[in-house]
């Protein structure tokens, strides 16, 4: 399906929509600019619909289970006050008088968003960021999007018809490079969410001079120092509830120790905590079954793919722990199957440096007295977020995105000399 000019069209209209866009974009860009206030009004109205339950049927129909809870959790971040604060924090100070005259903040122009499929609502969110900065947004939908984004766009343009010329969505597969290339040719900036494959593919399609804004896959981990007696249940709940699928999901639990036996003790102690979290999280038999299958698959892959390794396996019900002897940060088996490794604090910087540019969140659990030292080490190693283990995937108001303020990437600063 395609979304263009406020309505949903069949995929067969792609050619017509693309040709029309090529003609219309310059006209839209030449028209009156899209004011942030208009977008804020529309997003607020959409937020109200969400709060009063008017969007529940849409969510039930199109979003995966759990999306409603997810939305409730991020709801404060998409409220009017939070967005106004963000605009102020991220763009405030960029414009204003300068010794030579003045600086103005202008939208980049046309943004092509290659939206991610691992979290419902993100395609709409990335487009909203583009709208807030006054851009025209072309969204390439992820494969798993069952219609939620299209429905949200339609609702948004119903609430504020002035947004119609600024929102487009295309359900074109990644391998259709011809159509993607045509969209890329229209763009002033390409916002790519996804793995290295998606990022490189879009780099190839981007015309020279097009700004590349890449929210690539990141790896996150927990760092535990002196955890004896600490409550590990929040970490367990985080691991199970995100399934390891988010950039902020814990892939490896690093232990501040040199001793393998300490690692073994930890696994024996943590496995029941993880199992308990899994039992509580997988509510339906179907979800539990899926998790049990993944745990079984993990056990088999440990045997087959890591034959000859001396990994220590700790299989549990619907989850598992694998204690590996190296200290590299790497992707876990996902779905509640997590890796445990030793990483003495002296090794943090040399080890994590090898993954620079990929690091995101560290969930830190340590005694109060060690907190500052470990925080500084992790930050210097290249970690961009340091949180409590249970909050690794929480979103905090006014936080940066992978070390950057996104709205700044979606605008240009125009310097104007006063008299010439």
């Amino acid at each position: 399906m395609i979304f263009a000019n406020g309505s949903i069209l069949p995929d067969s209209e792609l050619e017509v929509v693309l040709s029309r866009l090529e003609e219309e974009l310059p006209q839209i860009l030449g028209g009156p600019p899209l004011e942030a206030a208009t977008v804020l009004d529309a997003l607020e109205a959409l937020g109200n619909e969400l709060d009063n339950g008017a969007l529940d049927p849409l969510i039930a129909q199109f979003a995966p289970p759990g999306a409603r809870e997810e939305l409730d959790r991020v709801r404060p971040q998409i409220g009017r006050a939070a967005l106004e604060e963000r605009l102020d924090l991220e763009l405030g100070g960029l414009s204003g008088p300068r010794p030579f005259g003045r600086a103005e903040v202008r939208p980049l122009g046309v943004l092509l968003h290659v939206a991610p499929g691992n979290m419902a609502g993100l395609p709409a969110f990335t487009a909203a960021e583009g709208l807030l900065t006054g851009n025209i947004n072309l969204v390439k939908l992820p494969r798993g999007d069952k219609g939620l984004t299209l429905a949200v766009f339609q609702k948004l343009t119903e609430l504020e018809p002035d947004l119609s010329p600024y929102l487009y969505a295309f359900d074109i597969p990644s391998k259709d490079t011809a159509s993607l290339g045509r969209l890329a040719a229209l763009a002033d900036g390409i916002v790519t969410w996804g793995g290295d494959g998606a990022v490189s593919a879009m780099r190839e399609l981007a015309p020279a001079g097009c700004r590349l804004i890449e929210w690539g896959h990141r790896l996150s981990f927990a760092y535990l120092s002196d955890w004896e007696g600490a409550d590990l249940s929040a970490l367990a709940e985080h691991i199970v509830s995100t399934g390891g699928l988010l950039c902020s999901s814990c892939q490896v639990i690093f232990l501040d120790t040199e001793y393998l036996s300490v690692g073994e003790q930890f696994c024996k102690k943590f496995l029941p905590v993880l199992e308990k979290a899994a039992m509580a999280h997988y509510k339906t038999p179907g979800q539990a079954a899926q998790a049990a299958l993944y745990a079984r698959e993990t056990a088999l892959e440990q045997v087959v793919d890591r034959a000859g390794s001396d990994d220590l396996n700790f299989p549990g019900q619907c989850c598992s722990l694998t204690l590996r002897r190296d200290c590299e940060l790497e992707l876990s088996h996902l779905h509640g199957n997590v890796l445990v490794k030793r990483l003495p604090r002296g090794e943090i910087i040399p080890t994590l440096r090898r993954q620079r540019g990929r690091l995101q969140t560290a969930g830190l659990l340590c005694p109060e007295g060690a907190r500052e030292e470990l925080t500084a080490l992790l930050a210097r190693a290249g970690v961009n977020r340091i949180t409590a283990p249970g909050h690794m995937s929480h979103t905090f108001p006014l936080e940066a995105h992978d070390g950057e303020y996104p709205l700044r990437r979606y605008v240009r600063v125009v310097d104007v000399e006063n008299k010439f």
Partner: protein
Amino acid sequence: MLSRQKLFWLSRVYDLPGSDKRFLRAVRDNCAYHIKHCPEYRTICKAEGFSPDQVKTIDDLAKLPLLPTLFFKRHHVSSMPGWRTPMKVTSSGTSGSFSRVSFDWGCIFAEIPMVLRLGFYHRLVSPVPARYVILGYKPGKQDKMGVARTMFGLTHFAPPVGRFYALRWKDGGYVPDLDGAVKTLARWAHSPLPVRVVAFPSYLWFGMERLEELGLSVKLPKGSKILLAGGWKQHYAQEVDKNTLYALAKRVLGVEEENIHEFFGAVEHPVFFNSCKNHHFHIPAYARVIIRDVRTLAPLPMGEVGLVNLITPLINATPVTSVMTDDLGYLTPGEECGCGLTVPYLTILGRAGLNDITTCAAGAAELLNQTGAQ
């Protein structure tokens, strides 16, 4: 490997107790073969402390190393070199990854009597030529999808004099032509030859709804049948009550409920499960089914809902002896069916956690590709 042929050439297709001994022997030989020829399977058996001689009774089948279908999607394992496997089949792989299962000559030699005997038993075999409308894929060189082959195979129970495919390969993709199928059905309804509609249940449903929408109804010639294979696939959300489907088939195609047959099977478990006259899948002598607890994977007693574990010694080329599907289901004592068969029957409730895996699996696959790991 004669133990396998002895099992599959059995004439009493639903005699489970009578076939137990042959089944166990064939499973032991099958396992021993995979252990000898498939390094991955050997490693798994070693890690789990399993050896074929542990399978002495039917209950011991639960000890077989349990491989989830996901394993076959991520590992294209084999117990035979490619030149010894005349047929390679893949699952439809809706989420982008698919299982690849190779078939050996011995397997094909064992399948033929199984399919023929079950076909005769369920009165699918007929000398009267028939025309086939296939609401499914047209098999071709471009793909090796198991269900396309199954559907093609189903067009041989009665001598085929014409085939119409609703999904055809065109410019690198399948193109549906439901309207063409509807027109063909209407045309063939006037001929004296029976028509057999071979279909994915979802396509049959959409096709019949289309007929009804157009205000059309036909009465297919006497002896016409509807053969359903391949499950509901990506259309689970629209899965309809079976009785509604049967009523619609009678209304718009004039096919009685007793002439609607369903089949169940998987690329990783190509045993030919047939529905009885009460639409139940009784377990044939060539397979055994264990229902397992969704959390512990331990075997469950009759009647309890769990993951469906399918066991057969059919294939030597790929170690699919004991496969864990991601279907949830349960077993019921055969006597409760009323069709006359006393062996238990399998009811499939649907795919486990289907909704929550589509997005995750897509994301995970991407993540896995990204690191090049696993």
